[in-house]
């Protein structure tokens, strides 16, 4: 059965926003596209994409696993170009993850378009007095096109192409108010920081292509698994990087880390996180759509997509980076005063959670968190947009307060968002918002990785693993894994853990994740659990602590904005709520409450099953659950073997009450505005210093500015100076030496040696020219313009020539000719 309806729908949905962009870009400024019409066109475009996505989502939901697997396999591929002998195909990666991401993007984007109509009506005039209303919606269309293209790409190259295009849109939209220096600075910072990440991406991409000989995501992962099993390809290869000999598993790790570098840029992970807070210079709907819900999640999406290409070591790196990011940014968020900056830092922190989740192997949970986060963070940003708009561009929460009376809808939808990000829920039940479940699930996996897993794995699968003693050994685990590779005997044996990791992946890929494949997969997956390096304990505790910090700073933000007494009467008096912007807020709030868990969670876990994308994920519960089991609360009800205590029960309470404690603490502290907190800060020694450090973002931006930005510019200047002065002067010497030879008189060549950039050959060339010139000027003396001189010269020359002929002819046959002639 060849059925391409889904792909056609999805592809169409990608193209429609592009059409909208094209129309607006060419004709947007013209009369028929006045202000509202441009917006309606863009809104219509994305809404139709959303309808298509809804259709696909619903139809997909009704299909059986076999049908889905078949559709995934039969997806259409169009030959795009040849890369050497490798064919690059364009196609739709049709699976549950694509569809759910696609739906999320179109859905949120539609409502943000709607919100923007109201928002931009008041803002578009800021740009140079001319109406740039249509330009905003054109960019949004281009963004939707690129983002959706990124989501459906089946090829890593196309993923990269759209990846860059969303970066471009981000650049254009951050710098939308480009007449302001800070806006264009922020746009540039975002783009260049992302390019640094892309540098890694390109290297990762190069390694993937080099060894798997394909750009296709699935094919590459299959080839990778196969190579692992056979100990060939990348696992038998070695390359030389500046004398660093990289081979085997390290090389494979490098590949994974390289790809992750791209994600680090786009998802703003430490140390490339600096651009995201600055990106808040863009219009607020853009912050909501691009810098909270969709584009910044692209990095996470990428890691999820290439998950099967990641070695345990690469995953560990990812987990470490995620852990650092989520901790650091959450701490910074505590002290921020700008409402958008707080949200930006909380976005960073949540992205850190997702990346951390992927790093520890919680594939499903991380993506689940992505979905829930997209909804509530978009809503929070729109809420902040309302506040900023209502308060006449006041962004400082210290000047707000008491706004709940003036903008009740914003206030309470914002509160729902705060609850969601705080992880509101009641442990042990199914009551709770998305963030509650997703964060809990990530932490549960982290717990497994940090404490339980290795012991269990030993206990349960000890029979087949008696020979492996290093399992629990964190320190040299990496080397243990590496030692396995290349040893074919060990590779061939079923007892080799590392082999099992990928063997299962490939097995899953072939079995398409259902039916009988599971039964014997169980043991193998236990093996996987045992092979992954154990996490250091701090990597579990830090996220737990931050789970308490998150509700605190979010509550602080909400409380200072909406509760208490107005601190700036002027701002308070002006505050108002725009009716047009209600709908998106309410819809997203409903989505936050309802959709996230009941719709997304099963879809994502389906994706993990069907695409065989994350065998490691399901390994941690010790048994394979069919996706139909999943709606019963995933991690909390898991059992680990018969009769064992469920460690997650305790964990669930530790995490589960964090929202309550954090929020209560914030509410008490800021009950009457920020004064109490200020006094505490002054009273406790060291706190003021800490506060200042955090306020300055740990000085990371300063360091970058100093070392990188100024450094590169200085290097450029130095280089330019070197080009003009050092090379030049050195070459001048050579040139003067050359001039000294032969020519002593004559006028200096009028060209002069200019202070441009002059290379070696240049001066030599100049010297040659000069020699020629001087010789010429010596010879030009007889050329005085007097005919008589010329005649004399000619006659003299003729005379000399005659003389020569005569002398020469004395002893030659020429004499005979002349004498013969005279004799006649």
């Amino acid at each position, binding site marked *: 059965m060849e059925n391409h309806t889904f792909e056609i729908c999805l592809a169409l949905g990608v193209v429609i926003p592009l059409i909208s962009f094209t129309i607006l*870009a060419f004709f947007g*400024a013209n009369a028929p596209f006045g202000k509202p019409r441009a917006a309606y066109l863009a809104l219509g475009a994305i809404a139709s994409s959303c309808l298509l996505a809804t259709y696909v989502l619903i139809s997909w939901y009704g299909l059986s696993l076999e049908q889905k697997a078949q559709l995934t396999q039969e997806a259409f591929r169009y030959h*795009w*170009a*040849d*890369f*050497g002998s490798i064919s690059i195909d364009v196609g739709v990666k049709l699976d549950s993850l694509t569809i759910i991401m696609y739906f999320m993007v179109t859905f949120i984007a539609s409502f943000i378009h709607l919100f923007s109509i109201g928002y931009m009506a008041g803002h578009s005039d800021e*740009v*140079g007095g*001319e109406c740039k209303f249509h330009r905003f919606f054109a960019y949004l269309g281009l963004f939707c096109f690129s983002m959706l293209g990124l989501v459906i790409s089946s090829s890593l190259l196309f993923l*990269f*192409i759209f*990846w*860059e*295009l969303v970066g*471009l849109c981000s650049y254009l939209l951050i*710098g939308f108010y*480009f*007449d302001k220096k800070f806006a*264009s*600075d922020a*746009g540039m910072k975002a*783009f*260049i920081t992302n*390019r*640094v990440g*892309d*540098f890694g991406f*390109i*290297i990762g*991409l*190069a*390694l993937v292509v*080099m060894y798997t000989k394909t750009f296709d995501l699935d094919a590459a992962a299959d080839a990778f698994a196969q190579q692992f099993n056979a100990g060939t390809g990348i696992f038998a290869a070695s*390359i*030389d*990087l*500046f004398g660093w000999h990289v081979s085997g598993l390290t090389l494979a790790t490098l590949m994974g880390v390289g790809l992750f570098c791209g994600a680090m840029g786009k998802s703003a992970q430490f140390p490339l996180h600096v651009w995201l807070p600055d990106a808040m210079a863009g219009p607020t709907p853009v912050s909501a759509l691009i810098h909270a819900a969709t584009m910044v999640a692209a990095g996470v999406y990428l890691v999820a997509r290439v998950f099967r290409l990641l070695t345990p070591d690469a995953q560990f790196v990812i987990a470490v980076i995620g852990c650092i990011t989520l901790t650091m940014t959450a701490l910074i968020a505590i002290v921020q005063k700008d409402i958008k900056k707080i949200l930006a830092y909380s976005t960073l922190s949540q992205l850190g959670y997702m990346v951390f989740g992927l790093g520890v192997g919680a594939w499903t949970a991380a993506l689940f968190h992505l979905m829930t986060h997209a909804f509530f963070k978009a809503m929070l940003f729109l809420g902040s947009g309302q506040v900023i708009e209502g308060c006449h561009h006041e962004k400082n929460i210290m000047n707000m307060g008491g706004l709940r009376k003036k903008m009740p809808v914003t206030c309470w939808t914002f509160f729902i968002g705060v609850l969601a990000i705080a992880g509101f829920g009641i442990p042990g039940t199914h009551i709770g918002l998305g963030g509650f479940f997703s964060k809990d699930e990530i932490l549960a996996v982290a717990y497994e990785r940090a404490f339980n897993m290795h012991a269990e794995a030993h206990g349960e699968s000890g029979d087949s693993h008696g020979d492996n003693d290093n399992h629990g050994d964190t320190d040299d685990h990496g080397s243990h894994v590496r030692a396995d590779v290349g040893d074919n005997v060990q590779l061939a044996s079923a007892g080799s853990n590392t082999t099992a990791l990928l063997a299962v992946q490939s097995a899953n890929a072939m079995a398409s994740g259902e039916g009988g494949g599971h039964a014997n997969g169980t043991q193998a997956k236990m093996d996987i659990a045992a092979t992954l390096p154990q996490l250091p304990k701090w990597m579990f505790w830090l996220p737990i602590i931050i789970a308490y910090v998150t509700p605190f700073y979010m509550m602080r933000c909400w409380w200072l904005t909406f509760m208490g007494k107005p601190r700036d009467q002027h701002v308070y008096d002006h505050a108002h709520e725009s009716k047009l912007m209600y709908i998106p807020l309410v819809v997203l709030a409903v989505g936050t409450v309802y959709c996230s868990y009941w719709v997304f969670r099963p879809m994502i876990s389906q994706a993990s099953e069907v695409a065989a994308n994350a065998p490691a994920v399901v390994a941690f519960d010790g048994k394979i659950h069919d996706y139909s089991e999943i709606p019963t609360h995933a991690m909390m009800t898991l059992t680990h073997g018969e009769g064992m205590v469920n460690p997650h029960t305790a964990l669930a309470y530790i995490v589960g009450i964090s929202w309550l404690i954090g929020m209560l603490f914030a509410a008490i502290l800021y009950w009457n505005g920020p004064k109490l907190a200020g006094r505490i800060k002054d009273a406790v020694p060291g706190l003021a210093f800490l506060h200042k450090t955090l306020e300055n973002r740990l000085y990371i931006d300063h360091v970058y500015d100093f070392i990188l930005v100024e450094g*590169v*510019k200085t*290097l*450029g*200047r130095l*280089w*330019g*100076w070197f*080009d003009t002065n050092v*090379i030049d002067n050195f070459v001048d010497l050579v040139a003067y030496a050359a001039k000294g030879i032969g020519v002593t008189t004559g006028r200096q060549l009028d*060209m002069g040696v200019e202070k*441009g*950039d*002059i*290379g*070696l*050959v*240049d001066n030599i*060339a*100049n010297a*040659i*020219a000069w020699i020629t010139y001087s010789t010429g000027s010596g010879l030009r003396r007889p050329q005085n313009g007097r005919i008589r001189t010329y005649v004399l010269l000619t006659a003299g020359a003729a005379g000399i020539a005659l003389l020569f002929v005569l002398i020469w002819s004395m002893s030659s046959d020429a004499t005979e000719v002349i004498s013969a002639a005279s004799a006649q």
Partner: protein
Amino acid sequence: MDASSILNFVIFGPLIGMVLVLIAPSQYAKHITVGTSLVVFFLSLMLFPNFLNGSAFDGAYGENMQAVTQIDWISVASLKIQYYVGLDGLSFALIILTTLVMSLAAATSWNFETWKVNKGAKGYFALFLLLETGVLGTFASLDFFLFYIFWEVMLLPMYFLIGVWGGARKEYAAIKFFIYTLAGSVLMLVALLAMFFSSADATGTGTFNLLEYATNPAITANFNDPAHMFLGFNFGQVMFIFLFIGFMIKVPLFPFHTWLPLAHVEAPTPISMILAGVLLKLGAYGFLRVCYPIFPTAAMDLSFLIATLGVVNIIYGAFCCLAQTDFKRLVAYSSISHMGYVVLGIAVMTDIGYQGAMFQILAHGISSPMCFFLVGVIYDRAHHREINRFGGLWLQMPKYGSLATLGFFASLGLPGLCGFIGEIWVLLGTFNAQATHSEMTWAPAMAVVAAFGVVLTAAYILWMIQRVYLGERREEYAGFKDVTARETAILFPMAVLAIFMGILPGYTFQLMNGTIDAVLKAMHVSSDAIAMAIGG
């Protein structure tokens, strides 16, 4: 008309135009030039139906030539010089590019009367058309002697075009250009003669046929023989280096790049467009047509050095861009940086590297004239090019701002635009080079350094965009009009091509892939034969 007569018309059509320009009154010179270049462009497009699917070029190297004209030209004693022109995948796309860029440059010269130096319209346009013949002839000729002659024909018009109609320091720039290129030509001439006499040693009758040099087993064996000495050095290596230097000056490669920024800064806008869009490509084309197929062994021996030069060009050019404050100089240095990718792609001698290099040649041939034209547009209005004095131009000239963003992003290598494909192909191809040539262990490191150029490129382009186009509107530029219809008409084809090549590179690749495979195969065969001979 069959393909070969079309090709001949394309090559010499500009000469007819030149004669017309000289005869007609000078106020019609520009009409004739634009007309001629357009006719030549459409004639060259008429070649397309013959080769559209690209498979016409798929045969073995040397036998896959299309549109061939081969007649004896000068036959004196053993000297047998032929008029031998033809097309294959390497040259066909470049011919089209040349005729297109020339037409656009001719249209750019339309406002000749308003230039600072606007005397001698006849001379300008006549030289312009002579230049076109020179370039087209170089791309099409398959006889080395003919190649050399066209190469020199191209040199002189360029000298005058810069030296007479240029900016403040035009004479200096022109003489610099002339001497650099001439120095290269001299080395090429030496190689030309040495190769002719060596080929006479090998086969009995000497030849100038470039294809025979690469494919005749007797000649390749002689040329690449490690025991064959020239002035005490290995013949193949010496010849390769001579030719390489000759061509690298044109590319231009570090350290012979210094003529380029100067020539660009002084040259009038259309001449800059031609210089960047077409003339630089001649150097790279010389590598592909002359250096590499004929001396594969030397190329392999020196590949590390050449790749290093390519990488240095990329990084060096990008850093120099960061230091520039003259708009045109910045674009000129960016050309240097971009041509580095071409050289790197060629240096690794793999199919992917070649594809990337060829694509980058074409992509840069589209994007750099566009950038220079964009600079010209603003220079026509502001009469200066100081980047730091600009600002807010996007608000002042919205259409121009949008087109400029497109052009500079194409140059930056944004996916979806032409610059990206060449860059990524070269980078990945370099990284992969080890798979084809196991001795190239340095290739991944080279690719890593080159990939860093991607970051620098973004930095200097965006910084420039910020300083010139973004920011608040300025009083002093309040009178500037947006792009005129003529300017839009010139920018539009380049913008469309930049997008087309970026989105559907397959069509461009189709034209050259067959030939690239053939060339590489021929190189492989000849270097294998040498290896066998040494081993035996």
